[in-house]
């Protein structure tokens, strides 16, 4: 069920916090079929400029999608849009906070078009992913 909150500009979305652990990176590799050694082979990754394994970028996007699903429910699954840039890798041991806020709300033919800023940052406040997300919500929808 979507978290109940007001659809107004400046409103924060429900934050998601995740501990990045190698076990989850390995599980994600299995589920997605992406076994690039930079994600799953510590010996290989140690010899690269990254110095160690990093999480799949798509794993972190899954966390953004989780935040948007928590906020907007089925509207996100069918009508959501995401546009992001990967700024820095997320590593095992990192704590990633996924946050967002509503930048603009526009009424359009019985719908609200919600435009959100999204940000993933690590425990050192370094941005890992930045971007925006859009979602279309029925104007009279009971969201709580």
């Amino acid at each position, binding site marked *: 069920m979507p978290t109940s909150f007001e659809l107004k500009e400046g409103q924060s979305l429900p934050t998601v916090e995740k501990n990045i652990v190698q076990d989850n990176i390995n599980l994600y590799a299995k*589920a997605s079929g992406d076994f690039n050694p930079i994600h799953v082979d510590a010996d290989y990754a140690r010899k690269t400029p990254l110095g160690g394994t990093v999480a799949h970028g798509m794993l972190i996007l899954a966390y953004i999608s989780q935040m948007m699903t928590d906020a907007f429910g089925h509207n996100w699954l069918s009508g959501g849009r995401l546009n992001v840039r990967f700024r820095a890798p997320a590593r095992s041991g990192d704590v990633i906070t996924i946050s967002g806020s509503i930048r603009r709300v526009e009424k359009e033919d019985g719908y609200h078009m919600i435009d959100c800023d999204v940000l993933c940052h690590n425990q050192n406040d370094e941005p890992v992913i930045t971007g925006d997300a859009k979602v279309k919500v029925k104007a009279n929808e009971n969201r709580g």
Partner: protein
Amino acid sequence: MAADKDIAYQNLKAGQEFPPAAFQVDSATVSDYLKAVEENSVIYRGTGIVPPMAVAALALKALINAISMPPGTIHVSQEFEFMATVNTQDILTGRARVSRVQERGKLHLITVDINVANQKQESVLAGKTGFILPVE
């Protein structure tokens, strides 16, 4: 979105299309995926609904399998639009097309457009993936 590693990235040209690839996201894969991303939304509990990022990840997997990417490839940008809910029974077809190739010094910037449709030929997902690859 073809057989494994059959296209060298140096040969990619704007406008190039990959052969379509059919795939299905079964309930075991959804279960593994939800565990990996620690997602416990009731939306996915026993409903057969596939998380949209799982569809996206598997569509990208087919693309990555088709291109021989060099070590040092970085996924730099991503756009997605989720047009319709996907269920575990759906048979999906992913299509990918190179929309831009740029060479900047020792780097290649490659943008690939992705579209996924269900068995009714309805688009369920569209995306744009940006990679930076070192020039070898």
